[in-house]
């Protein structure tokens, strides 16, 4: 286990595993498990850059995913012939711009105000997409099937191809995130999270750095939304991107590990497995009385308990727990201990 201690090595191992998965001949696995897992991982990675590294909690991730989904649709609809990957990138940029608009009022202030300004995004964005058919290409029903997509003439039509495309995009963006978090900018994210005043004394432009984190985060989450809409649900509709989804992405980050790239993947995997495991375990122990409603409720309680336990005992989440499987590990981005943190 020693060599997965460094994130790049773990990243390589993850890629190998993910590619090996492609050999399994199961459409269900790709369509219902792996592709949504990758999309959620990417969204969580985006949120982790903002919340875990820069310490700014956003509650609007699902809304930003919706912006990514609708922007992709609109770019492809209103600019015929636009290559798919360019549309994905464009959707990421549009989402980053919108994230900045909603982030600015909250990021100018110290503390949790971003949570409120991103809640504004959550409610406003869903309303806009529901009320203005222009965004759905003039369709007023609010639900549009995602048109077939192709890259360079190759139709992305099978579950395996959808999985491989999302894997490609997620791999590239994760690699970039690893570089970013190790760069000077990434280090200034951590400096701001740990102590804004000290960061400023060290010469970090606090507002500018927060805005960079917000824009990068928006870019990632927007592309995650595009993957979710085009490669997983294959529908363009505002309904799925509700507040609960935003919370779930935040929970993925907390459980997987704040300020850790692989934490996003571990947390997303956990969130995919938890409901399945719960319904199996519940059915085995309580029999038929354990219906889907009860699964939902117990999942809520277990998630809540896990959030509090992880925040109390292991803020670096599953990521740190896995590192412990090896010997003592020098933690790369330890969260501040209570004492060193400024009290206010």
């Amino acid at each position, binding site marked *: 286990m020693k060599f997965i201690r460094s994130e790049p090595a773990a990243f390589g191992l993850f890629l190998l595993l993910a590619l090996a998965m492609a050999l399994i001949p199961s459409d269900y696995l790709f369509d219902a498990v792996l592709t949504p897992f990758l999309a959620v991982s990417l969204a969580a990675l985006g949120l982790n850059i903002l919340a875990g590294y820069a310490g700014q909690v956003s509650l609007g991730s699902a809304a930003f995913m919706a912006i990514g989904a609708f922007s992709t649709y609109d770019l492809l609809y209103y600019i015929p012939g636009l290559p798919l990957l360019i549309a994905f990138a464009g959707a990421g940029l549009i989402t980053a711009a919108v994230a900045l608009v909603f982030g600015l009022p909250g990021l100018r202030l110290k503390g949790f105000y971003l949570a409120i300004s991103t809640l504004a995004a959550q409610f406003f964005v869903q309303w806009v997409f529901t009320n203005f058919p222009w965004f759905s290409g003039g369709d007023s029903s609010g639900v549009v099937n995602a048109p077939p997509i192709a890259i360079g003439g190759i139709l992305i039509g099978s579950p395996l191809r959808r999985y491989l495309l999302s894997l490609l995009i997620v791999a590239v963006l994760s690699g970039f995130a690893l570089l970013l978090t190790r760069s000077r900018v990434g280090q200034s994210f951590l400096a701001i999270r740990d102590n804004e005043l000290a960061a400023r004394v060290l010469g970090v432009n*606090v507002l500018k750095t927060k805005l960079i984190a917000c824009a990068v985060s928006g870019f990632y989450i927007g592309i995650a939304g595009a993957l979710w809409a085009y490669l997983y649900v294959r529908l363009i509709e505002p309904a799925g991107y509700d507040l609960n989804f935003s*919370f779930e992405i935040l929970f993925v980050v907390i459980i997987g590990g704040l300020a850790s790239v692989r934490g996003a993947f571990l947390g997303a995997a956990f969130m995919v497995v938890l409901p399945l495991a719960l319904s199996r375990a519940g059915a085995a122990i309580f029999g038929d009385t354990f219906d889907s409603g009860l699964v939902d409720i117990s999942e809520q309680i277990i998630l809540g308990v896990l*959030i509090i336990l992880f925040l109390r005992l292991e803020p670096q989440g599953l990521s740190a727990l896995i590192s412990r499987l090896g010997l003592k590990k020098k933690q790369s981005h330890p969260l501040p201990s209570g004492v060193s943190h400024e009290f206010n």
Partner: protein
Amino acid sequence: MDWSFFAGVVIAGLLAGVMYSLVAIGFVLIYKTSGVFNFAQGAMVLFAALTFVSLHEEGVPFWGAFAITLAAMIVLGILIERLVLRPLINQPPITLFMATLGLSYIIQGAAQMLWGTQVHQLDLGIADVPLPLNNILISQFDLFCAAVAGGVVAALSLLFRYTNLGLAFRAAAGDSFAALNTGLRLPFIWAAVWSVAGFIALVGGLLWGARTGVQFSLSLVVLKSLPVLVVGGFDSIAGAIVGGLLIGLTETLAEIYVGPLVGGGIDQWIAYVIALIFLLVKPNGLFGQRSVERV
């Protein structure tokens, strides 16, 4: 323009705002004394209302059910202090905020696990008939809510001003280190203040529950009260009231006069737009004292 209709809309908006204030006050209490941005306030409203209405349906008389639910809220307050706040003491505010998100999931889940997920009707015995006053229609139920909210605020001010507990609350709010130095036990104060917030959640839950039915969506009233807090200031009870009135008023006016132009439903977000404007222009809110640092 029909002025008596307009006046009716204004009054209805203000009275709706009172309902937001009621939830916001519980939030302010906790923020003031322990610095925690308590997202679980809405879940506490749901838990209290669901417990009360289920007991009442089992045949427990009104005040009996009220007392048992209040006791449950106090136990909940003590448990939260023990299991969540104390272990997380001195952590950054953002960590505490995320912990209250987890807490709200636990409380919501527990409430539904205990009492089921069906919608309950709650009848407080106040008829919801419009009361005509100079051609202006005013809902009797809204007036009752406003009176109850007024009573709660008055009781809170008395508690804060004339009791030792209130003095301790104010000391902890003013400077928690100094309070600790004079021998006040902060853990006790926190448990007490969460219990008082539980009481307010119970009152709010009964009024909201009587209006909308007791169901899961009650826990979402916290989302309505957040903009109220931004407008009024997170640490001011007066701010929570004025903020609530302002938000209630704008929401109702906007939905009636602007809504039809853009397809309706703007009451879903108009409060948040007002909050965003306040964050940009006056981040302390109207009455906030604790200084908000800009970067």
